[in-house]
Structures are given as structure tokens and as C-alpha cells.
């Protein structure tokens, strides 16, 4: 009797552990990161849905003339940004108003887009699908095409149990793939895990980073979910005033979302309009070009004091935020099977 009891208790504990493991992977708990902002209980991660989302992410069927996929402007080799273009271009080579941001660690974001126009990862793809300079289509048109495609009806059935292709299922699958794009294996991360060490130069750069940059680009995600006016003069050819378009509040004029600093080497050019093509230009802006003005973020008034040597050290640190493992991860690449 006692042994039976023992077996039952052990099986129970084992089940509990297994359950906890599944729970953990379905919720993207990362040890060094804070709790994700995404509510996984409404869309628990599932390998078949992730795979379906990946197929959709790389499929130009999402655009009106089947030419442009999500990956056209969010390419895996650019940390899912659109490198080498100041302003990203979509369907019929139309130039959009902004530089497509890099995609990673999206479960931790509270807002999407440079002006925070989108409040949740699920509805986010509706914006590019409907935009005339991005995919030029509509959710209705996209679902219509997917429903006629026998491979998609099969894949939706595999992932959801029946062949119904709805907006909700489509958007949740796309969200699932994007949620798996976690970047947490840079040199910085391995230093934090005590598996590696900074060089002297990187260490000095890190000190400068903590002193001058961390209040906006906050560790360990290197962002702080907010918007700031970082002193960039307005580009008169675009007249993009950022966050004010959404809130219509004057204090939000020229404020843009503070982006993460991970994977900078791959995601150039920088800023919402891609005006800087390298990190020296970015640091020169912060060190030399910021005027004192009531509209510019308080932390940047008068600019950041950096010597030429300090700029080099700071960049050496920023390069430790490149995540090669993230860039090489086959699960994130174009699905070849």
C-alpha cells in the first residue's frame, strides 16, 4: 500500500514538473528579463501555430499583388528591420514615411510603431496589410486568398482543429511566430550570466552607457516603453511629428518610440526616418548637435558630454548587444519545407 502511495505521489510530482515546464515555454519566461507584457493565457504558444505564423510572415500572399511579405521590410538578416534604406518601401516600390523597426523581444513591448499607434501585437499586422505604401490589401482580401489555398486550409486545420480561417486565428498565428523572436544571447547577456567577460574598452563603454543612456534605453531590454523627443530637427520633406498624431497632445510633438539597442550592427540605418547610417553619426548627434530647448527631453538638454575616445568605447559596448545566435537561428528563417 505504501509503495502504491509513493508511486502516486511521484507521478503527481512528475506531472506537476512537466506541467510547469510547458507553462514556462508557453509563456516565454526568460530568466534575465522582466515579466512579458503579452497575455499568453489568451494565445498560448503552440509549435503548429508558430509554424503557421512563420509561413504567413514570409508569404507575399499578404499583399494585394502577392509581391510583398512581412519579411520584405522585416528581413531576418537585418534583425527583422529593413537595412540600407532610410525609408522602407513596400508594394509597387512605394516609399513609406518611416524606417521599418527591427523585430525582437516583442512580448515585452507595450506599444508598436514609431508613434505607438498600435496597442497590441495581435492587430499589428492589420496596419501594413491595409497601408497603400506597404501591402495595399485588406484583411478581407487576405483571408479570401488564404481560404482558397488548400495548403493553408490544411495548416489551419492542423493548428486549430478545423479548416476555418478567421481574422482572429490568422492574427494570433502571426503573433505567435513574432513572439518567438527572442534575442537574449548577445555577449552582454553572457557577461551578465558570468559566462564571459567584457574587454577593458567594453567595460568603460558600459560605464558610460549606464551613466548617459540607460534611463531611456533601459537594461536588459534596452528600451523603456516610452516616447521621447531626442532633439532631431524636423525633416521638412516628411513633416513627421510622431506621437502627437496619436494623442493630439502638444507635449507629444516630435516624440518617437525609444527603440531597443540590441542588434544595432544588423538593423542600420537608425532613427524613425533612418537618417543616420552609422553609430558614429548617432553619437555625434547626441554629443554635438542637441540644442537646449524646452521641447527636447530633459535628460538630453545641452547634449551628452562625450570625448572622442569615449564615443569609441561606448560603441564597443553597444556592439556587445549584437546577438549572433538570434541572427543564425534556423527557426526564424524562411520556412524551406
Amino acid at each position: 500500500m505504501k509503495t502504491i502511495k509513493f508511486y502516486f505521489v511521484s507521478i503527481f510530482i512528475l506531472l506537476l514538473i512537466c506541467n510547469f515546464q510547458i507553462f514556462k515555454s508557453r509563456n516565454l519566461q526568460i530568466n534575465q528579463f522582466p515579466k512579458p507584457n503579452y497575455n499568453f493565457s489568451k494565445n498560448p504558444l503552440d509549435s503548429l501555430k508558430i509554424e503557421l505564423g512563420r509561413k504567413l510572415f514570409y508569404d507575399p500572399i499578404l499583399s494585394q499583388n502577392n509581391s510583398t511579405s512581412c519579411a520584405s521590410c522585416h528581413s531576418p538578416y537585418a534583425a527583422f528591420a529593413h537595412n540600407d534604406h532610410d525609408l522602407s518601401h513596400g508594394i509597387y516600390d512605394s516609399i513609406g514615411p518611416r524606417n521599418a523597426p527591427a523585430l525582437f523581444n516583442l512580448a515585452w513591448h507595450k506599444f508598436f510603431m514609431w508613434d505607438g499607434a498600435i496597442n497590441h501585437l495581435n492587430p499589428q499586422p492589420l496596419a501594413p496589410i491595409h497601408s497603400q505604401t506597404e501591402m495595399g490589401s485588406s484583411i478581407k482580401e487576405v483571408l479570401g486568398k488564404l481560404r482558397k489555398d488548400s495548403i493553408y486550409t490544411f495548416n489551419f486545420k492542423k493548428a486549430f482543429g478545423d479548416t476555418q480561417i478567421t481574422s482572429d486565428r490568422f492574427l494570433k498565428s502571426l503573433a505567435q511566430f513574432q513572439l518567438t523572436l527572442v534575442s537574449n544571447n548577445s555577449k552582454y547577456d553572457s557577461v551578465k550570466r558570468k559566462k564571459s567577460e567584457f574587454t577593458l574598452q567594453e567595460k568603460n563603454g558600459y560605464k558610460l552607457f549606464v551613466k548617459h543612456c540607460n534611463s531611456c534605453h533601459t537594461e536588459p531590454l534596452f528600451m523603456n516603453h516610452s516616447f521621447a523627443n531626442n532633439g532631431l530637427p524636423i525633416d521638412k520633406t516628411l513633416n513627421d511629428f510622431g506621437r502627437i498624431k496619436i494623442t493630439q497632445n502638444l507635449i507629444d510633438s516630435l516624440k518617437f518610440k525609444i527603440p531597443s539597442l540590441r542588434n544595432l550592427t544588423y538593423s542600420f540605418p537608425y532613427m524613425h526616418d533612418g537618417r543616420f547610417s552609422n553609430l558614429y553619426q548617432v553619437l555625434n548627434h547626441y554629443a554635438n548637435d542637441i540644442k537646449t530647448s524646452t521641447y527636447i527631453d530633459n535628460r538630453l538638454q545641452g547634449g551628452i558630454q562625450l570625448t572622442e575616445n569615449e564615443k569609441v568605447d561606448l560603441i564597443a559596448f553597444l556592439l556587445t548587444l549584437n546577438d549572433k545566435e538570434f541572427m543564425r537561428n534556423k527557426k526564424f528563417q524562411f520556412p524551406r519545407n
Partner: protein
Amino acid sequence: MKNLTILFLVLFYNLDSQNLDFNINYGDELLTLDKKYYSEKIKDSIEINTLKFYISNIKYYKNTIKTSWIQNPIIVSLNENKTSINTLDEFSQFDSIGFDLGIDSITNVSGDMNGDLDPIRGMYWTWQSGFINFKLEGKSKACQTRKNIFKYHIGGYAFPFSAIQSMGFKLYHKNNVDIVLDIKKIVDSIDISSINEIMSPRKEAVDISKIIAKSFSIENY
């Protein structure tokens, strides 16, 4: 077998559903889409081509205590001839009814797109997250716009431009309940020659949402 039939009858009696009907009027008559009406206020003709809105959080009260609640948002659409909401409740039991015109902020930030929240229904802004609570489109020569079109896409969930409106009506222990929405009241209360295109959350949208709320009434007989 007889017992089973009785059981079924009892079950069906209890589940007896009742419709909450929306009568969309233009003044004293039922509104017909695409029909020209003469407006004394603008001294010209006016026609309505699109009318759709969200009703959510339908609540019934008995002695001021909430006794029944349908939370799922439902689209009422004259274009789709969908002007009844199945409520599964006997109105005669209750003293009052309340509902929201629009979608609350919690639903707006939840990422939920099931049922009537499906963006395919054309009641969601794609470039900026948010449901359109109330959509009214039409034509009038008073509007100096392309093809004289006016468009009121009323929505917004965030401070200070929240455009959701809560309403409550007394019930008089009668069986039939019709909610009446008078479109004439709305268009007569807006200066359509100057405000004729609203397609984002802003102050004018909040003002119009208040006008719309005042244009609802109840017929309980």
C-alpha cells in the same frame, strides 16, 4: 416519453429568448438607406448610406441589482439588416436595462478579434488600434466634400478622447422593448457643413458620441 416532452417544454420555456429590437428612425418614420429626406435645418436633401454601431455590456436590473448581463459586443447594422439582439431574457422580469454604445477600453487593448469584433466587419481602425463605435455615412449638398459625402466614424477609448457612451432606460413590466435611434436628431445637432469627416479619436468625436447617446430612446409596450 411524455415526461421527456414536458422536460423539453420546460427547458425551452426557460430558454425562451427575446429580441432587443433597434428601430432606426428618421424623425417619425423608419429610416430607409439611400433614400433622400428633406432637412429643414440644412434646407436641402440628405441621405444615409451606412449605419453600423456596437452595443456592448447589456445589463438588466431588478430593484437596482444587476441580475443579468451580456458582455459580448454586438454589431447593429442597418446595411446588413441586423437590428435585433437575441438576449435570452424575459424583459417583463426586470425594472431597467442598460448598455454601452461602443467598445470599452479593456476590450480595445486586449487584442481580442473574435465574433463581432472581427476587423473584417469594417469597425476597426487599422492604422491606429481601436474599434469604431459608431459609423454613419451619407450625402448632403450641405457638405462641400468630394461627392458631398459625410463620414462619421466615431471611436476612441483612451483619455481624453474616450467616445464610449453608457445608457440606461426604465422598463414598465411589459413584454416588448424597442430601442429607438433617431438619426434626424443626430444630423440636426451637428453642423454638417463644417464637420463632415471624422475618422479618428478626437474632441469632435467625443462631442458627437454625446449627441448620438441623446438620440436613443425606448419604446416599451
